[in-house]
């Protein structure tokens, strides 16, 4: 069964078309939904929750139609909003127990489940303190816990890594991977960085201005994203030529170079080439390119 499928899904707001004839399907596992700001990611999630009616086309979540079976979908799905949504004066435990009851769990089950999921997301003693005093990372975990507390079949995570430092980001991504792989809960997770999702997703959907750019298994993306950004002080051209001579895929990208990584020796080659040419290496970064860059690259622009 498809976890979600949309058919010509369109959403027009008075001044913008947020989704434009989107047709995609995904199966179980972790699906990344990638797009720049305003691409329509959050709009798609709200439609999938049955909270926003589509202008045209349709969508189904777990086989249920979003326009007619919204309430049933919301019983089976968990949602983590992109914005802050936590009251500061209650504790994580209190909030998550209460929201579990709002999902229909009896009181005792709500308490047990809340304690369980808060442990799973890594909130220990602090869960009894008011949320107002939490760090951004802890708040994101509470938001994730409330999405999981009723043991949904699918969770929709809207920019869960937003505002996190690199370590927090890593921990959140690891957790998402676990949810998909070990908890057996399907995940739809949005981000504007393809690079950060590639480690945790089985499938990636890329949208831009409400249109589908690409939807495929992660393997097909790795070619595009397994590249590093290289920035040198001067002599970019010389470095590009040297690497090309050595048989590496090199594409200029503004003042920087995108080099395709074929194995561990690619990084060694970059290091050696810069050293040989006596260049000053400013940046060597992987996996954090913006999605537009990836597409510029794959499209061969």
């Amino acid at each position, binding site marked *: 069964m498809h976890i979600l499928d949309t058919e010509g899904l369109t959403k027009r707001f008075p001044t913008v078309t947020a989704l434009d004839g989107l047709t995609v399907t995904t199966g179980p596992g972790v699906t990344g939904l990638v797009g720049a700001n305003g691409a329509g990611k959050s709009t798609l999630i709200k439609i999938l929750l049955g909270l926003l009616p589509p202008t045209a086309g349709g969508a189904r979540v777990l086989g249920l139609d979003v326009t007619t079976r919204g309430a049933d979908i919301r019983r089976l799905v968990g949602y983590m909003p992109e914005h802050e949504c936590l*009251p500061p004066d209650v504790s994580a435990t209190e909030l998550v127990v209460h929201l579990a009851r709002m999902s229909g769990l009896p009181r005792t089950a709500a308490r047990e489940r809340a304690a*369980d999921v808060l442990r*799973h997301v890594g909130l220990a003693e602090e869960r009894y303190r008011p949320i107002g005093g939490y760090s951004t990372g802890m708040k994101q975990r509470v938001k994730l816990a409330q999405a999981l507390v009723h043991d949904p079949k699918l969770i929709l995570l809207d920019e869960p890594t937003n505002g996190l430092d690199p370590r927090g980001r890593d921990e959140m991504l690891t957790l998402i991977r676990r949810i998909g792989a070990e908890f057996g809960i399907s995940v739809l997770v949005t981000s504007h960085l393809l690079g950060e999702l590639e480690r945790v997703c089985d499938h990636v959907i890329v949208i831009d201005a409400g249109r589908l750019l690409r939807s495929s298994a992660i393997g097909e993306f790795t070619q595009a994203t397994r590249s590093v950004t290289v920035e040198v002080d001067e002599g970019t051209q010389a470095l590009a030529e040297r690497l090309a001579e050595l048989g590496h895929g090199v594409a200029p990208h503004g003042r920087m170079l995108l080099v395709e990584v074929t194995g561990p020796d690619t990084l060694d080659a970059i290091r050696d080439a810069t050293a040989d040419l006596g260049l000053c290496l400013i940046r060597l970064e992987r996996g954090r390119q913006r999605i537009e860059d990836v597409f510029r690259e794959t499209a061969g622009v």
Partner: protein
Amino acid sequence: MSEIYDIGYRHYDGPRLGRGHTTRALAVHSLRGVFGLGRPARSKLVPFSLAAIMVLPAIVSIAIMALMRRAGMSYSGYAVIMQAVVAIFLAAQAPTVVAPDLRFRVLPLYLSRPVTITEYVGAKVVAMTVALYALLAVPLTVMFAGELLIDLPGPPRTKEYVGAMLTGLLLAVLLAAFGLAIASLTPRRGLGVASVIALYLLASASVPIMYSTLLSAGNDAAARWAWLLNPFWLVDAVQVWVFGTTPNSEGGYPGGPVSFVIVVLLIAAAMAALALRYRKAASR
């Protein structure tokens, strides 16, 4: 992350209860919030102090009945006499019911669950109604229990007590719907408190002035209408119409069901305002 989360995930296969359960749970949760239960002690201070003040006249009344062997305070006049305390309670506590969820954008966490906006608003109105009703019904009942125990000469004022309990419920619904509608317009709690209290002060201070002005202009009939501008006298007018009690206003009220019709229209208007407000909040 630490190793503590390293335990297997357990699925939940127990019961998932329906709308009745979730709505009731939300109403109870909100009601506890009104009285600051499960919150720090300072959140309980205001509601419980006001509730205590509400009971004081009932206790004094019992003392009068016991010591002086004569009827104490009237049941039908309790709400009108204590109106300032009830209004302060409404102003202070209505924002705690609606403001945090709006201000901190918690609403999406409810709406992404099987809870509908109607159930959400309904549960909030029920919670505030029950709180206000408790504020009125407890002293009335304490006083009535006292009267029965003391066993004054003559029959107990059962009809007046029952009438006051029923009109108290109507008053509670009216005040809850209105108070929440006003409080929901601003996500800021302080502003909500100030708006409700300002509106009440306007309605309570201006009414006697209007009444005496119209009266001195020789317009007795119009003067009696002035009382209906204040919710406590308005509901008292309903009580006079239904139970034939003595009016708690100078000069009485316009006769007939007009006061009841006004109450119903006001409740409907407040509920419509709440519905609109939340429809807008939900679409954010």
